[in-house]
């Protein structure tokens, strides 16, 4: 009996320490729902968008140069696609103790300053971050609402031009939504997520 408890404890601690090796969801996987606090102190989940056909979930943060570089493009995605049924939902995956400019208060400041038209959610304990297996900022997951529930359609980068100065950039996210809107599966369902590693507390 004692042995079993020990084994269970070991298995559990292994599970905890492997949280940051959490498997990243891919196209076809179910997209787990969540209930996270937005910068306006209200909880947000998939259900907050009654008329949505899908969602553009972006794990992003206040601090990473890539997140900052993509900020305007994230704002533009929401501007363009929310009215078409695909709102942006931003989630900050960083631990505020590991990255002290990513606290809830600093997130509120940034969202207000840049007039975010989309929710910017705090993920206590990085639980949703690990359920999705988000590794970088920014890391996007495009989800569609289907009869079988919410399904991941695309995972990776917003486009292939982080610095944003290539006029011939491939806009992966926009292409995915164009396909979904025309009732087709996207041609590209996965790209490399490019950005800063999700910040975690140092391991004891």
């Amino acid at each position, binding site marked *: 009996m004692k042995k079993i408890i020990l084994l269970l404890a070991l298995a559990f601690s292994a599970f905890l320490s492997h949280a940051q090796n959490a498997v990243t969801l891919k196209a076809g996987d179910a997209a787990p729902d969540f209930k996270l606090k937005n910068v306006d102190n209200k909880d947000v989940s998939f259900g907050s968008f009654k008329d949505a056909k899908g969602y553009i979930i972006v794990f992003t943060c206040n601090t*990473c*140069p890539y997140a900052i570089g993509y900020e305007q493009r994230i704002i533009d995605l929401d501007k363009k696609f929310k009215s078409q049924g695909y709102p942006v939902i931003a989630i900050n995956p960083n631990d505020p103790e590991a990255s002290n400019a990513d606290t809830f208060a600093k997130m509120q400041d940034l969202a207000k300053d840049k007039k975010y038209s989309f929710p910017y959610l705090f993920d206590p304990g990085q639980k949703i971050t690990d359920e999705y297996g988000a*590794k970088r900022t920014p890391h996007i997951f495009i989800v569609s609402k289907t009869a079988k529930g919410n399904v991941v359609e695309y995972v990776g*980068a917003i486009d292939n*031009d*982080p610095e944003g100065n*290539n006029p011939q*950039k*491939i806009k992966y996210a926009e292409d995915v939504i164009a396909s979904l809107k025309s009732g087709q599966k996207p041609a590209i369902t996965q790209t*490399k997520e490019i950005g800063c590693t999700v910040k975690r507390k140092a391991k004891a």
Partner: protein
Amino acid sequence: MKNKLLKISFLLFLLFSIKGYNQNVKLLTINQLNERIKNGKDSTYVVNFWATWCAPCIKELPHFEKLGAEYKSEKLAVLLVSLDFKSKLASNVIPFVKRKNLKNEVFLLNESSPQEFIDRIDPSWSGSIPATLFIKNDKRKFVESEFTYEQLLTEYKKL
């Protein structure tokens, strides 16, 4: 008068050459990196991918400086390739290189699509930094993790 002009032009020349000397961070495409390694006179290349915004990268840079200095006589060249944005070359990268007084060759990667260049460095690379490519003759080894000096030395000696 002539003398004065000469002096001024000499001072100007000095000023520009010093400036040129200090701005020793060149833009580098993957093709240029491959050429640099193929045509270089050294026999071993340790190519470290880093950025000024990457804390673990900055932490391990001194190890690469030490390795480069200590094994120069063994025909080792350490190349530090920054993944900072090109727009940060003058504002961040060059001042950083000056401040840290880096002696290894420093470059800034001149590629726009990580989706392509990551695989061209190594197909196993997730794109995360720090990451280091070791090249000796035909041997290539890619390591996507942070090093202590001992770990770095071990990898180098294993080549």
